[in-house]
């Protein structure tokens, strides 16, 4: 009998003995479909992806020869890789800052004003809509000639802004669109976190004469740290992998995906182009490996820095 089994109450003799839930024979059929899926579409491709990055795989011939570290050597010298990383990081930083600040604001407002499911539903709604549709809605609203947003800005004397055709503005524009889609989701995560903070902490602080500002930075933010760490990991990892919005929003209406002048060519798009436009799957796989390393490093560092597992509440 294992320690875990001994911990079970005596009225469950079969569980205590371990006979009832014993072994692989009974578990096998429950696990089989999921195991097939995991091995075929997660484990095997992850290993094969690394292998492909050492070949010159060609999708049309569907074969590739071992080329050693050629793809990685090329990657280090390819300024377009580093340009696309810079574009991606710029997008991520703008997106994270705007999204997190807005989401904290919305969450605090909702926490104070209402727990209405309808209001939470409306705020969450854009998150459920496919990226493709979100991109199209905003391409129309932000159109340089006919867009309602430029019309609106015109009332305040602002000249029409070329949101998608100006190389400096395209990335902030895309980040703004993504912020619109995700701020409700992030706000709900933070809102859920706010519900875990005991209200009597605020009452006690208020009795001691703490100001609203002191309570926000002294109580709310520290106790929200675990959820903020999680939110930041989700949003940063997600932002580094942006693709759909960029592909659709910059690819239509006579434009090239990643345009204008590659100002919005994010790393995902560059991988996509190498694989499916240039038919260099080995090289695309090598850049993917680089991206995975970056994603793992970001996640690891963030969780360490934010000590996500710990809450000051215990």
């Amino acid at each position, binding site marked *: 009998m294992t320690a875990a089994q001994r911990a079970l109450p005596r009225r*469950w003799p*079969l569980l205590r003995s371990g006979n009832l839930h*014993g*072994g692989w024979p009974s*578990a096998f059929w*429950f*696990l089989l*479909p*999921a195991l*097939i*899926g*995991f091995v075929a579409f*997660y484990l095997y*491709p992850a290993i*094969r*992806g690394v292998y492909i990055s050492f070949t010159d*795989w060609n999708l049309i011939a*569907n074969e590739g020869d071992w080329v050693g570290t050629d793809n990685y050597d090329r990657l280090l010298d390819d300024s377009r890789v580093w340009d696309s990383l810079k574009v991606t990081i710029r997008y991520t930083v703008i997106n994270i800052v705007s999204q997190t600040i807005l989401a904290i604001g919305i969450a605090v*407002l909702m926490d*104070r*004003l209402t727990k209405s*499911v*309808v209001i*939470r*539903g*409306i705020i*969450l*709604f854009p998150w459920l*809509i*496919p990226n493709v*549709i979100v991109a*199209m*809605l*905003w391409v*129309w*609203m932000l159109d340089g000639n006919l867009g309602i947003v430029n*019309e609106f800005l015109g009332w305040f004397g602002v000249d029409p802004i070329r949101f998608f055709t100006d190389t400096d503005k395209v990335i902030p524009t895309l980040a703004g669109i993504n912020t619109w889609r995700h701020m409700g989701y992030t706000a*709900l995560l933070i*809102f*859920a976190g706010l*519900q875990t903070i005991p209200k009597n902490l605020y009452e006690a602080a208020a009795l001691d004469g703490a100001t*609203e500002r002191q*309570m926000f930075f002294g109580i709310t933010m520290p106790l929200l740290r675990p*959820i903020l760490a999680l939110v930041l990991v989700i949003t940063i*990892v997600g932002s580094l992998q942006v*693709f*759909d919005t960029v592909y*659709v929003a910059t*690819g239509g209406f*006579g434009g090239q995906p990643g345009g204008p002048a590659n100002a919005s060519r994010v790393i*995902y798009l560059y*991988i*996509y182009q190498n694989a499916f436009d240039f038919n260099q*799957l080995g090289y695309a*796989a090598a850049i*993917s490996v680089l*991206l*995975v390393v970056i994603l*793992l490093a970001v*996640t690891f560092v963030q969780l360490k820095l934010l000590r996500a597992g710990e809450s000051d509440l215990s």
Partner: protein
Amino acid sequence: MTAIADRIEQASGAFEPSARLRKLGIGRGTAWLILIVILIVSLFPFWWALRTGLSSNSELFAGEQSLLPVGYTNNNFERVLGTASETEILDSLGRQNTGSFDFWQSLKVSVIVATAITVGQVLFSGMAAYAFARLRFFGRDKLFFLFLSGLMVPPIFTLIPNLIFIKNLGWLNSYPGIIAPFFFMTPFAVFFLRQFFLGISREVEEAALLDGAGHFRTFFGIIVPMSAAPIATLAILTYITAWNEFLWPLVVARAPERQPLTVALGQFTAQQPGTSPDWSGLMAGTLLAALPIIVIFLAFGRRVVDSIGFSGIK
């Protein structure tokens, strides 16, 4: 019931937070105003798409910016649905239809793909989750950890190997090819259901097992009915995610008759000319493609909203 509970909660919390907000210098009214602006920002693009879809292109190009449709017409929706005649198309576009997609065929693909993925993924992930939550077998915790580590694998990394795998199976441009990678499991689904199964009392289950029911009968007869709510929530989230998927069907289904709505709409956008694109047709198509998601959300919004806190906090 819950609505009443909400109202009581609001009423009882009304005093204290408003006093605190006043300290901040923001009245309750101002706070509500900000929240309402956020709600409008969340919903306005959808109204604008509907308004544009019901407008005629010629009036749009004349620069009309009324909040209501300009030059009201059903023609754009009819064009997308394929019920408009050639002359009607010429009338509304002033030219031949450049770029189009077969809405009904793509709708069919989206429905088949999302339904198959939801059924397979929820069933098989649920079975695996039961094994991880309840059965005892060698290496269980290590295997579960391995499954969870699949959460860290970014989709782009497995995209290329998976595509080669599907190509080798001869499944390009086919339903099995689009469905397979999501059919058997996702690490999130297994994790999500395992959490719920762990929380179910063992007593009923123990009784069933003592009565000689096998694990399959226990699972389908007791565990599944007792977990109907979380299973429904997961099914809704899975359906929406499958409906919104873009990158995988984009690379695996190049043939128009196997493209789901997201991909078909993306291609439709890419075919639009830079000068005088068919805005009203695009917005009509966009809304129609989002309609199933909107209907699901109206029907099951509360489940989706409530699930957000769970997936965040665990």
